[in-house]
């Protein structure tokens, strides 16, 4: 896996170029394309996850054989990412799901909608 015996760090250069391309692609998707907003969000979040994977696997030596897999505690990292997903998705689901808070339109949302604008 590891390319560190070679003179040129091929893996790092590929990872760097890929992350630049993916960043520009995300910027284009967000600001240049005419996709619906929901699709833009899904697309750029997917691009971000791919970029994070590039950092972890191509830059952070997660899978190199010469150091015995980089001594990465896979179960701990997996646990961390699962917790992160639960915290973010769970917070959005319980706090924001189905609730619209446009500043202009005050539909009769009982008295609680006025608190939400604080």
């Amino acid at each position: 896996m590891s390319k560190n015996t070679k003179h040129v760090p091929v893996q790092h250069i590929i990872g760097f170029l890929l992350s630049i391309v993916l960043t520009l692609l995300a910027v284009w998707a967000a600001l240049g394309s005419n996709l619906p907003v929901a699709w833009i969000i899904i697309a750029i979040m997917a691009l971000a996850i791919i970029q994070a994977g590039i950092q972890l696997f191509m830059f952070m030596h997660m899978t190199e054989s010469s150091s015995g897999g980089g001594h990465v505690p896979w179960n701990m990292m997996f646990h961390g990412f699962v917790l992160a997903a639960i915290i973010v998705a769970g917070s959005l689901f319980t706090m924001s799901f189905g609730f619209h808070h446009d500043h202009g339109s005050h539909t009769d949302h009982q008295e609680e909608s006025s608190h939400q604008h604080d």
Partner: protein
Amino acid sequence: MSTHELKTGPLEYRTQEGQMSILGFWIFLGAEVVLFSTLFATYAVLFGRTADAPVPADLFEPGITLVMTFLLLTSSFTCGLAIHQMRAGSLKGLITWLVITLGLGLGFLGFEIYEFIHYAHEGATLQSSSFWSAFFVLAGTHGVHVTLGIGWAVLLIIQLVKRGLTPVTSRKVFVISLYWHFLDVIWIFIFTSVYLIGMVV
């Protein structure tokens, strides 16, 4: 050094202590993932609750955030090159690339400070609304991590100059490289879910 020292493989992995330190740092990074996830969750829940302060779409600019992103992406790359030089046994190459990495990190920090001051002038501060509180805490926590990383790396460069490449110093450099790449991972998510989505929605 100790009799348990291996004769082959990367220098930082040759001692048991080095291996355990790197393992321990990965566990720390796992905890950092959870720390930042709570800040992201808070930001996402409070998104749009700007009260009387400016809305993010009026303040976020694609140009400056893209420059910051490329500075940090490039610094992550040069940090990888530094480790490549270290593995090749070149102390001079390692220090050179580390200094370049720090320069790029300082550039990132400079833009971030400029950006925060600019927002404050436009009326978006930590106190102005729950949205901006969440924004500044999230982006600010990342900025504090970058600042700490820069201070940490400066101290390590001093050690490298004094002691050269040993299993201990190379382990320390490897750990900070993991930290630096990890900051880039966090920034990718801040760039995407804060800046890009803030400019779209």
